[in-house]
Every structure is written in structure tokens, then in C-alpha cells.
């Protein structure tokens, strides 16, 4: 019973999490250049190929040129991918082969703080990736409203969400191969069916309902609103759903990793 309570109680997370975040930051700063190029590369290719290339053949969507339509989605998806890679492959390496977690939890930093610190770091990397795209989109003249400033805190929440979700996968993964399921079954469909590349309005009702369960859908909707300055009260519902999903996944991920490591 005691063990049960220990596993499921609300974790106390103190400054130890920040120490772990700092550790990851130190490592990143050593190799940040290639990392940033990685963040930039793919989304910019999409933006150019699909936005300018394909966009030439596609009529405006609700009065918006295609490239402007897809830019917000490419931004949130690049945050998603970056956070997911960090907290699957990166965290799994630190947790298993490198034994970094083991080394830290015999210091005053607790296991919960280690997991949280790693998630915060994944979120930070996600936010950095998104920020890079935001700067590019601004340079391309694709941003139409000062509301876009709110994208920054939103990216932090999004980063937390996907870092936590990935940490759940890390807790469950027997080997690296397991992450193929995650990226193929969850992340890739999310990338394609969250309204980044085409509006979901024209789809049958069941498909729209299904897309509501994809957290990325809500993030795309909110970000698009902020990019265009078209704000509607319903965005708060989208935001609440994102936050709820983040809190739950964060909690679940800590519980699961703890259960995996503490025997």
C-alpha cells in the first residue's frame, strides 16, 4: 500500500529539476550550431516546396495564400518533432545506456526532478525549434499580427506536452526500435491530419471529431489565429484542452518512469 502511494502521489519538484535542465543545456551549448541547422532545415524546405511550389497551384484558403496557411502549422510541428526526439532518443539514452539518471539520483536531486528536468529540457528544445521557424516566417512576411508574440509561451506549453508524451514512450520502450511505433502511429499522422496542410472543415463529422483528440490540431488552430490576428473566444477551449492534456501526460510520464527505474 505504501509503495502504491509512493508511486502515485503528486511529485514534489524543486530546484533539482533546474539542475538537470542546466546539465542538458550545457551539453547542447557545445554543439548548438548543427542542432540549429537541423531545426531550420526541414521546415524551411517544406515551406519553400509546399508553400511556394505547390502553393502556386492551390487557390487561397479562406482568403489566405497557401504559404501563409501552412506556416503556423509548420511552426508547431517543428516544436513537436524537436521535443519528441529529445525525450525519446535523448532521454532513453540518458536513462539506459549512459546511466545519467542513475548518477544523478544518488545526489540530493530526486528521481522526479530528474524526469521533470529532462522534460523541461525537451520542452525548451521544442520551443527553440519553433522560435527559429517563427523568425523565418517573420522574415518571409508571413506574420500578420502582433498577437504572434503569444506564440512563445504557447510553444513552451506545447513543448511540455510533447516532451511528456515522449517520456511516456521512453518509460515503456524496451529498445530504441519501439520509438518507430510512436513516430509512425502517433506523430506522423498527427503531422498530416491536424489541419496543417488542409482545412478540416470540409471533412465528414467523424473525421473532425477524431481530429479533436489530436492535441496538435488545437495547437495549429490557436497558432493560426495568432498569426493572422483572428482571435475567437473558442480558442480558449482549444487552449484548455492542450493544458489539460499536458498536465495529465506530465504526471503519467513521471509515474511511469519512476515505476520503471525504482524497483
Amino acid at each position, binding site marked *: 500500500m505504501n509503495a502504491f502511494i509512493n508511486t502515485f502521489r503528486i511529485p514534489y519538484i524543486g530546484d*533539482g529539476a533546474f539542475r538537470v535542465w542546466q546539465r542538458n543545456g550545457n*551539453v547542447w551549448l557545445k554543439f548548438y550550431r548543427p542542432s540549429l541547422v537541423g531545426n531550420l532545415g526541414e521546415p524551411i524546405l517544406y515551406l519553400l516546396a509546399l508553400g511556394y511550389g505547390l502553393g502556386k497551384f492551390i487557390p487561397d484558403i479562406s482568403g489566405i495564400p497557401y504559404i501563409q496557411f501552412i506556416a503556423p502549422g509548420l511552426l508547431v510541428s517543428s516544436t513537436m518533432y524537436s521535443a519528441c526526439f529529445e525525450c525519446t532518443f535523448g532521454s532513453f539514452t540518458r536513462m539506459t545506456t*549512459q546511466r545519467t539518471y*542513475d*548518477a544523478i*539520483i*544518488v545526489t*540530493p536531486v530526486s528521481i522526479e526532478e530528474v524526469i521533470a528536468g529532462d522534460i523541461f529540457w525537451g520542452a525548451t528544445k521544442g520551443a527553440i525549434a519553433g522560435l527559429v521557424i517563427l523568425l523565418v516566417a517573420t522574415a518571409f512576411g508571413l506574420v500578420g499580427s502582433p498577437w504572434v508574440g503569444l506564440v512563445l509561451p504557447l510553444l513552451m506549453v506545447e513543448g511540455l506536452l510533447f516532451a511528456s508524451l515522449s517520456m511516456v514512450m521512453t518509460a515503456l520502450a524496451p529498445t530504441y526500435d519501439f520509438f518507430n511505433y510512436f513516430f509512425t502511429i502517433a506523430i506522423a499522422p498527427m503531422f498530416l491530419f491536424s489541419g496543417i496542410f488542409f482545412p478540416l472543415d470540409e471533412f465528414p463529422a467523424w473525421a473532425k471529431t477524431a481530429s479533436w483528440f489530436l492535441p496538435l490540431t488545437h495547437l495549429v488552430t490557436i497558432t493560426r489565429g495568432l498569426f493572422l490576428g483572428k482571435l475567437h473566444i473558442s480558442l480558449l477551449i482549444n487552449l484548455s484542452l492542450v493544458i489539460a492534456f499536458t498536465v495529465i501526460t506530465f504526471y503519467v510520464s513521471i509515474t511511469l518512469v519512476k515505476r520503471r527505474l525504482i524497483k
Partner: protein
Amino acid sequence: MDVVVEARNLVKEYNSHRVVKGINFSVCKGECFGFLGPNGAGKTTTMSMIICYTPITKGNVTVFGLDVGRYPKKVKQKIGVIPQETNLDPDLTVFENLMVYARYFNIPKKVARNRVKELLSFVQLSDKRDEVILRLSGGMKRRLLIARSLINDPELIILDEPTIGLDPQARHLIWQKLRQLKAHGTTMVLSTHYMEEAAQLCDRLAIMDQGQIIAEGSPNHLITEFVGTEVIEIRSDGQESNYILDSLKEHQFSFERAADTLFLYSREGGRLVQKIKEVKDERIIYRPATLEDVFLKLTGRELKE
């Protein structure tokens, strides 16, 4: 004497499989206390409970009077840990490893920098300061682990098999460093299955087997209590050894047969040897009793895997 670590009826179960079976021990200030036992005896598990890594199933452990289950942060702030398997941070250099580790203890940067410098020179790694972990030898990694465990200036360090897998030179250097720490007053709890290590470092030993402490005492005390003072090993088959045993009837000794060897334990080895040489003059080893004899006698000679 001040008690630094105390365990009472300590039990650990993994999926209701009991691997530590209600053990008791205490470690005094300034002492080097060793767990000696074959693989799977429960040494690592016991030490993991002391360092707040593995939750305790039953019983309790206090470190500096603090219950490890209730005050893990306070306990961990005061101890140094050297794990059985190297877990240095491969993404960082030697210097960075120690600096980043210092931060986990909330040691201010300036203080840490001085401390790291001292520690690197103590473990003779000053010239490897900017090396990546990958390029260190096994012995250097172990020494760096020792430096890392000392970063918070702990009064107690816990070492799990500190020289496992090292060559003799590297091992002796580590022993020398650990003796230096001991002379400086640091309390140590270590586990090992190397007899020489136990004899070199430990004031007191607990011999563990199958989750229990089966004997406890100083190395010398254990030797005199369990095997006497001298050992004679005779390579010999069954029939010949019967004949030899017969010829020693009027002497005080105990014996053990293991495969191709007959072991005689006695306090009057010299006279026994003379007698034996009358019937057999070759392949006799006559030597002082060691911890290894105690260990094998208590934990058995069969392979533990």
C-alpha cells in the same frame, strides 16, 4: 563511538522474492566496513538501500541518525557514492563532469571550481582535465568516480566493488587513495568479492551469502575464528588423501576435500607438514590462512552463478 550507519532487520524483496533477508549491522565513525560475498549475495542491494536508491521493503536504515526513507535529500547531501558500474557523464569532459555534479549538491560555482582542482590533483587526473570520458582508461574512470563522490566533502562514502575489472597497478593506486581518505577520517562502507581488497581496506567485515550476514568481525578475527592459523593444500586423489588423513590421526586439525585438493586447517601446520612429507613429498602448499579460506569455507566452493 558514534554510529554512522545502522540497519535493523533490513529486508528487500523484488516481486516477493526475498534477496536481503532481515540483516542487522552498524558502522562506526571513521571505520571502513566491508560486505564480502559472492555474486548475487545481496551486497549491491543492501548498499542501494543505504544510499536511498532502492526502497526498503521492511526494517529500516539510518544514516547519521536520519531515516533514509523519510529524509533522502538530507542523507544524500551528506554522502558520497561510487557505483558498481561506471556512470560518468559521457557528454561532458572530466572537469565538466565534476562541475556539473557539484551543482546537483547546490555547491556555489567558485567553491566548486577550487574543490574540483583539488580533487583532480588528489586522484592524479589534473592533466586529463579537458579529456572526454571515452578516452579515459578503466583506472582513470574509477579515480574520477572517486573524485566525483568526494565533491560534497562527504563524511561517509559508499563504494560498490571499487576496483572491479582493474589491472593490479590501477587497483593498488585506488587502494592507496582510499587508505588516504580513511586516514583523513572518512567513514567507508564498501562491497567487494576480492579478498585482498577486503583485507587491505576493511577494519570490519560482514560476510554475506544469499541475503544474509553469515559472519562478522575484523579480518584477523574471522580467520582465527573460522580456519585457525595455517593451511596446507595437498593435490591428491581420494585414496591417497585417505591415507594421509590416517597418518595424521594424533594431530589437531580440520579438513575439507574439494575436487582434486585436500585442505587441512590447523594451528600446528609445521608439524603436520613434516608428517605428511613422510608419505608424500610433492605438490604440498603450506601457507598462512587467509580470508579466502574463511570465505570459501563459509560460502561453499561451488560456482555461484
